[in-house]
Structures are given as structure tokens and as C-alpha cells.
């Protein structure tokens, strides 16, 4: 259990003890509390006072399935508030196996310098000159780093977008096959990493210093029960067969699939981009469905999309990207969507923010909806560093400003995701109030909103939405602290108490279901406190006016959650 502290200004790395307040934390809980404690809320997010904190979940590195989730935290240059962006792959498990609780990157390298952080098999960190890698896209970067440092490393890195300090820049990390195709996409954290002068973090695999469990037998028993619940869940074979893209057809069917910059809730070209179509195309061409993307995954929601000749295009093609590069652009060409997904990974861009940035440009009349080639060219411009490329790379808010166009579906300047809040009112509450800005994972209340899916709320009514979003946001803050994959939450089917047992079996302290809620609440309070100190007010917990004023076909509804109700979300 240790922190790796990296002082970029001094180009030095040290190991420090984990102070007592952080000992029983990991993931989002750790990054958010530490940022709230140590980062001045009003600082320049791309300046030396910001910190970039990379933390595996509290349960990462244990035998628990689907627990290799990494949290990356900082003050966001996109939202101006606190940010935790979460990613899979292998690095969370690898860091935890080295006994590393978090990497804390501070200060700023002098202008024009570029570093790599290498963490060896003993868990010792060292900064290396990275100038030879400046400007590289992520796939080429990873290939070269593997040639020099070997295959047995996970690599977490930025592409040109991060180096250009663009606020839609992602941090990419390698999957089980060693490809940099997993993204901590949201919040522009790639720009924070770029501002530090850090191009990549190389972490040795196979560490033998995992934090010991205080009660390994209880842990093992609960982890087995958890894994069985994941295996037995109905959604697991669904995710293996179609991945998260299984959501395309049903969300479109219920009219909540934002189309052509959220002018409509159903896409007439949807049949060509459903999960079912994607899986058939992949199968026919000899790609891979039910691909394993992350360490210790038993769900296999990933895929490898290939072209007509069977050549690799991208991994993994997901629901959100099929939306942002598909329906949102009026584009039903799956091959171009896959290409755009690859480009974003390679350039180091969030696929959601980038797709929506292109959608806003099309909505403003810059290019026609449905012009996939124009979308590809716009994304390529980001890598070239042209003036317009910088606008796209700064996300939909920047594009709206450039064109003086106000149909921009962002909250706290971050794009919403693939659920239109007018057709699922609960998502309006989550988008508006989460400290993260427009974000679906912070409180996914889609199931609760759809009667057809067993939900109990009227999705067009405000009734009960605040409460369900609040509870979901508290729960997710705790889930993101543990490092549990969102899709493996089916393991909670065996009971929250079973998960709490694992926490207690690691920490040696009792951990009840009340403690779970207290943990999630504590994290949200810290995040809200940071944002308030950064001058956010209740006015920032609102949606753009298009959602209140423009009825969304086919149901022709608008958001009906009042400001007063929104403000009750965090009245704890």
C-alpha cells in the first residue's frame, strides 16, 4: 500500500505512505477526496496546481471478477469542476498487484519537455525522457514502447489531442491484447496529462505485492457468490453476444435515441447499426464477438470489429460510440462508425464529446447530417492541429460558440450521452446534477424509468425521478470506488451485504450496507464542495434550454423536472 508521487517540475518520483484518511479507499473515492483536499478549486486545470491522480479500485487486484477498473481524477479543463473518469483494461489490476494505491502526478514539466513514467516489477517509479515519442498517435506509441520496454506492461497514454491540451482529450489504456483501445474519455483528462508533460505511464505486469486481505476465506467465499450471480444473470449472455450495443435497438424503440443532434428520438437508419447487425457483420467477416477486453472479466462485452477483408479496425465498438458517431450524425454506416471509433482512440479523444462536437457542427450547417466522410475529416483535423481541429477537439461547447449556435446538448460543458432526457426524465436529473457534468454512468436510471423493462416510474413524469437519481448517484460513487465494472453490477444480485463483506474482509473493519451509502454520500459531498468552491451554483445544475423547449419526436415531450426539484437532489 503506497502512493507513487511524481513531481513533474523536479522530474522526480518518490514512494510515500498512504495517509490514514485514504487507507480504506480506492478509485473515485480516493481521487475525489484527495482532489477536494489538495487541489485549489479555482486553479487553472492545465496549470501546475492541478493534480492528476490515477487510482485502481479498492477491490482491484483481488480475486473478485470484473474488478480491474481504474479511476483517473483531476480538476477538469472541460467542465471546470471535479472529474473522475473511469476505464477498464488491465492497468488497475497491474497497479494493485504492485501494491500501488495511487499515482499522484503533480506540478508541470518545463515547456517543451516530454516524459514517460515507468513503474517496474518492484513497484518503483522512474521518469524517462519521452521526447522521441512526442506527437505520436496511441497505437504507434504503444507499438514503439513495447519494442523498447517489452510486452509485459500495461500502457496508459495520451495521443496528439492530449498534447494539444484539447478539452475532449482522453487518456487511453491498453486492453488484454495490449491495444490502447480503452478510454478514460470524459472530462478532458488527456489534456491534464498533456499539461503535465507526461506522454505515457508504463506499468509492469505480474506484481507480487497486492495488499493482503485480512480475512481471505470470507473474501473468497463472497467473491465466488458474486461471480455466480454475474454468470447467472440474464444480461450476461446478452452482453457477450452483442456488447453494450444491445441497447441500440431497444433505446431507439422507446424513442430515447438522440438523432441528428437530438432533433429526434428515433433514427430511421437504426437497423444498420443495431447490436444485432454489428454482431452479424463481425461474425461474417471473421472478427471477434464476446472478446475479453479487461483483466479478470467473465462477461466479455468487448468485440473486435474488422473490415470486409477481415483486417482489424477497432475494439471495442460500443453503444455510446454507435450513437455519437451514428444516429447523432444521421450516419447509418457501421464501417465509418468503427473507423471514427478507431480514430478517436488513436488520436486520444473521447468518442462521446467528439461525435457530439461533429453533430453540433452539422446542426449549425457546416456539413450535412449523414456525411460520414466529413465527420472523418473533421476528426482527422484534430490530429493535424488546425484551428478548426482545435475547435472540434474542445468538444461541443466550443463548436457551438464557434458557430454561434445554441443547440448544444452539454451540461457543465460536457456532452450528455445516448439517452435523451426528454424521453427518460430520470436521466435529466442525473445529467443536470451529477458533479461530473453530462454523464450517464453517474446515475443510470434508464431501467427504473421504463415500464417495459420492469421499471416503476413514468418516464415522462417528474414523479419520483429525483429520488431514484439521488440513490443511483450515491450507489455509483461507491461502485466506482471499489473498481467494480458497471456491467458486472449483476453481482449485486447476490446482495449488497455480500459486497460489503468483501470490503470488510480486506480492511479488517466492519463495513455495513449503511457504510456503503455513507461512503457514496461522502464522495458526492466532497465533489459538490469542490465544485461550489470552483464557483458552481445551482444554475449549473440545469439542462440547456433545447431540452425544456423543443419537444422530442416521436413522443413530443420536453423535460418536466422543475428547478426546485433538481435542487432537492442533494439535500442531504
Amino acid at each position, binding site marked *: 500500500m503506497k502512493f507513487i508521487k511524481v513531481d513533474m517540475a523536479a522530474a522526480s518520483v518518490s514512494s510515500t505512505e498512504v495517509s490514514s484518511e485514504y487507507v480504506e479507499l480506492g478509485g473515485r473515492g480516493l481521487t475525489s477526496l484527495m482532489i477536494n483536499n489538495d487541489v485549489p478549486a479555482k486553479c487553472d486545470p492545465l496549470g501546475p496546481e492541478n493534480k492528476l491522480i490515477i487510482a485502481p479500485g479498492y477491490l482491484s487486484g483481488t480475486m473478485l471478477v470484473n474488478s480491474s477498473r481504474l479511476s483517473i481524477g483531476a480538476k477538469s479543463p472541460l467542465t471546470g469542476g471535479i472529474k473522475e473518469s473511469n476505464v477498464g483494461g488491465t492497468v488497475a489490476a497491474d497497479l494493485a498487484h504492485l501494491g500501488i494505491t495511487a499515482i499522484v502526478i503533480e506540478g508541470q514539466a518545463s515547456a517543451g519537455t516530454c516524459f514517460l513514467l515507468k513503474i517496474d516489477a518492484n513497484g518503483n517509479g522512474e521518469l524517462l525522457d519521452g521526447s522521441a515519442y512526442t506527437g505520436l498517435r496511441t497505437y504507434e506509441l504503444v507499438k514503439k514502447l513495447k519494442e523498447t520496454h517489452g510486452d509485459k506492461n500495461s500502457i496508459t497514454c495520451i495521443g496528439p489531442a492530449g498534447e494539444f491540451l484539447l478539452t475532449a482529450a482522453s487518456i487511453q489504456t491498453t486492453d488484454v491484447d495490449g491495444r490502447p483501445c480503452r478510454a478514460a474519455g470524459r472530462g478532458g483528462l488527456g489534456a491534464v496529462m498533456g499539461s503535465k508533460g507526461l506522454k505515457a505511464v508504463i506499468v509492469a505486469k505480474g506484481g507480487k505485492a497486492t495488499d493482503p486481505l485480512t480475512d481471505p476465506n470470507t473474501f473468497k467465499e463472497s467473491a465466488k457468490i458474486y461471480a455466480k450471480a454475474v454468470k447467472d444473470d440474464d*444480461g450476461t449472455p446478452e452482453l457477450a453476444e452483442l456488447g453494450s450495443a444491445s441497447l441500440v435497438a*431497444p433505446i431507439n424503440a422507446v424513442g430515447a435515441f438522440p438523432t441528428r443532434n437530438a432533433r429526434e428520438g428515433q433514427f430511421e437508419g437504426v437497423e444498420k447499426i443495431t447490436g444485432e447487425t454489428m454482431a*452479424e457483420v463481425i461474425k461474417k467477416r471473421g472478427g471477434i464477438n464476446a472478446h475479453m477486453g479487461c483483466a479478470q472479466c467473465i462477461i466479455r462485452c468487448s468485440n473486435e470489429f474488422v473490415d470486409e477483408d477481415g483486417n482489424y479496425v477497432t475494439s471495442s465498438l460500443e453503444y455510446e460510440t454507435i450513437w455519437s458517431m451514428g444516429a447523432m450524425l444521421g450516419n447509418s454506416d457501421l464501417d465509418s462508425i468503427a473507423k471514427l471509433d478507431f480514430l478517436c482512440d488513436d488520436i486520444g479523444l473521447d468518442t462521446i464529446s467528439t461525435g457530439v462536437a461533429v453533430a453540433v457542427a452539422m446542426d449549425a450547417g457546416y456539413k450535412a447530417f449523414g456525411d460520414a466522410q466529413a465527420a472523418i475529416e473533421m476528426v482527422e483535423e484534430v490530429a493535424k492541429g488546425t484551428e478548426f481541429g482545435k475547435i472540434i477537439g474542445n468538444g461541443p461547447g466550443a463548436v457551438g460558440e464557434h458557430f454561434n449556435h445554441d443547440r448544444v446538448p452539454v451540461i457543465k460543458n460536457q456532452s450528455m450521452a445516448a439517452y435523451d432526457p426528454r424521453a427518460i426524465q430520470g436521466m435529466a436529473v442525473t445529467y443536470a446534477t451529477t458533479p461530473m457534468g453530462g454523464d450517464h454512468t453517474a446515475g443510470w436510471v434508464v*431501467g427504473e424509468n421504463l415500464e417495459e423493462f420492469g421499471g416503476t416510474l413514468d418516464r415522462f413524469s417528474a414523479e419520483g425521478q429525483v429520488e431514484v437519481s439521488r440513490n443511483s448517484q450515491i450507489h455509483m460513487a461507491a461502485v466506482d470506488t471499489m473498481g467494480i465494472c458497471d456491467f458486472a453490477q449483476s453481482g449485486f444480485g447476490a446482495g449488497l451485504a455480500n459486497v460489503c463483506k468483501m470490503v470488510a474482509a480486506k480492511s479488517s473493519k466492519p463495513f455495513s450496507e449503511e457504510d456503503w451509502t455513507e461512503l457514496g454520500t461522502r464522495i458526492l459531498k466532497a465533489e459538490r464542495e469542490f465544485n461550489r468552491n470552483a464557483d458552481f451554483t445551482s444554475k449549473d445544475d440545469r439542462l440547456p434550454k433545447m431540452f425544456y423547449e423543443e419537444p422530442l419526436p416521436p413522443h413530443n415531450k420536453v423535460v418536466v423536472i422543475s428547478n426546485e426539484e433538481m435542487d432537492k437532489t442533494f439535500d442531504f
Partner: protein
Amino acid sequence: MKVKVRLFGTLRKKFSDHDPLNGFEVEIPKKDASVNDLIDQLDIPKSKIGPVSVQGRLVKADKTLKQGDYIRIYRPIFGG
């Protein structure tokens, strides 16, 4: 009556004649059959069924079907 049925996600697995992209044709012997009757006839547990649409419009399970209807049956959803 004959209707066209498309099953989404894993629902289609047990029907070998179901084309993943075009579904299949189903003959419903019962007169004035509803969506519920169709689901019973296909022997799919209700717990595995999410939304159902007829001609692209979401319908309730008691909706009466007619000759030539195109019924899409989706799985419940999960995740984020």
C-alpha cells in the same frame, strides 16, 4: 393469421429459423390474438421480455394483433 416477428438480443437463440436481421413469420391460430398470446405461443418467459412494438410503435401486451403486423420484441435492459 400470419405476422412477422423479430426477436432482439438473446431472445432469438432458441429459434433456428429466425433470421437475425429479418426475423421470421409466425402463424397464430388463435383468433383476435394479443401480443401476450404471441409471447405464450413462442414460449418465451415474460421476465425475459422488454418493450414490444407493432409497426414501430410501442404497444402494451394486451394489444390485439392483425394479419401482416410486424412485431418487434426486445430484451429488458441493464447497464449503462
